[in-house]
């Protein structure tokens, strides 16, 4: 949303109601999820989502570093969201900034809401998210990758955490914004859903929406999350199916 008021505002919606990349308002970008993409991590996943490329790794439960963060009754979940310098158009200075620290915090809290952390007292479950190529929605792509990585690591959880952002472009509520839509749109609302309970464990919003629009945006986001949930399960099934069955489960 940083460029509101900039010149050359693109037309985000065609007269037919189609978006810049030809999608309908309720359509996701193409998503590919690969569970177990790294060898050394306890769990990992690579997600390509539109023009986003995100790798996630999980280590643990293991010893807590730094030690003073250790909790006697449960595991601590430490999350580091990081962006490669070349992942965005203007080179990003490497290292921690306030944005990535905030995203790390809300993602860690989302996972704390679903992981059975009390089963691993005095340990740390470390979640690393690396954004290699960014095109809006990286926190959601990172969360989806990390969630699949946690499952790949065998961490017990209430459920997987699908996530997606809903926004407002050209006055319309739209699912899964890409970069131009995020930059020139009117609102952005990333969320993560616990499919079992239907509750949201990550929710942020920036921009302006009416109460009615917000209601529709939430409904659209939940629908999108359920779609992503199916793909996350499919990725894990693909990784853990022992014998490939030709023409098997669609």
């Amino acid at each position, binding site marked *: 949303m940083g460029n509101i008021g900039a010149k050359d505002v693109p037309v985000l919606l065609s007269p037919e109601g189609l978006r810049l990349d030809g999608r309908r308002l309720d359509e996701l970008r193409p998503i590919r999820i690969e569970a177990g993409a*790294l*060898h*050394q*991590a306890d769990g990992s996943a690579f997600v390509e989502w539109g*023009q986003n*490329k995100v*790798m*996630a*790794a999980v*280590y643990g439960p*293991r010893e807590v*570093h730094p030690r003073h963060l250790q909790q006697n009754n449960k595991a601590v979940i430490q999350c*580091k969201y*990081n962006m*490669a*310098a*070349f*992942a*965005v*158009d*203007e*080179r990003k200075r*490497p290292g921690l900034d306030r944005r990535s620290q905030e995203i790390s915090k809300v993602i860690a809290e989302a996972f704390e809401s679903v992981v059975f952390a009390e089963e691993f007292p005095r340990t740390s479950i*470390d979640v*690393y*998210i*690396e954004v*290699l*190529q*960014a*095109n809006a929605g990286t926190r959601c792509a990172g969360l989806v990758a990390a969630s699949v990585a946690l499952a790949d690591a065998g961490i017990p959880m209430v459920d997987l955490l699908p996530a997606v952002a809903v926004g407002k472009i050209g006055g319309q509520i739209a699912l899964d914004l890409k970069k131009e839509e995020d930059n020139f749109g009117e609102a952005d609302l990333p969320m993560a859903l616990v499919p079992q309970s239907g509750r949201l464990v990550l929710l942020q919003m920036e921009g302006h929406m009416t109460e009615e629009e917000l209601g529709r945006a939430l409904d659209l986001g939940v629908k999108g999350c359920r779609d992503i949930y199916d793909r996350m399960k499919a990725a894990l099934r693909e990784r853990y199916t022992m014998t490939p069955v030709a023409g098997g489960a669609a």
Partner: protein
Amino acid sequence: MSEEVIAEILTTHILDLAADGRRLDGRGPDEYRPVSTQPGFVSTADGSALVRMGQTRVLAGIKLEPGKPFPDTPNAGVLTTNAELIPLSSPTFEPGPPQPGAIEVSRVVDRAIRAAETIDLARLCVTPGEKSWVCYVDVHVLEHAGNLIDAALLAAVTALSNSIVPAKRFGVADSDYALDVLHLPIECTFVRLGDAIVVDPTFEEEHAAQGRLTVATDETGRVVAMQKGLVGAFSPDDVKSTVRRAFVHGERLRSLVKGARA
């Protein structure tokens, strides 16, 4: 504790094998793991390459931005190399400021790129003393399974060879153009395991190593950079034979860079 005991047993085993001319993964002493390059992996970068060397996986991205030349080199562009050993890439890395290991990788890779005159820095000058291109080489280690230096330089050189100077986007020229690459340095790293000196060490072999030696060569037959690392020693004869081996491997790895050129 138990992890350390296992590591000691593994170290002994690696050294025993090496005395027989063998290695843990079945390679010969002068054999690289399978190496592949994938240029253009990151579309947001001006050039990029993903390199796999066995299980080691390294991503290099190039970014070019207009900036100011250094006062002592007013007629040249600026080259900056940075390697990130992110905690995602190995169970042994922890978050925090760059560790000495990451800094050494950055500097050894930077030295080879610079000394070989890989890119034409003079052509990256726009207005002497005022404006020049700054070329950022960012190396992101995705999986550390040993020999980061060779993989990092191979990724960096492949990425540079496929880079576009975004002159139009920054209003410096009417059109973008390919970055001039003059030379192709390749680094080959060896470790001492007892009396044996083996190429392309794995993570476990680096742990067992009694000295590490990196030799960078270019396509004109020059040695352009060297680095001895880890605890251990090499005789001058060891160094000479290692340089000879580095030229042979360098030529083969360089053909991967040329093959990946757009």
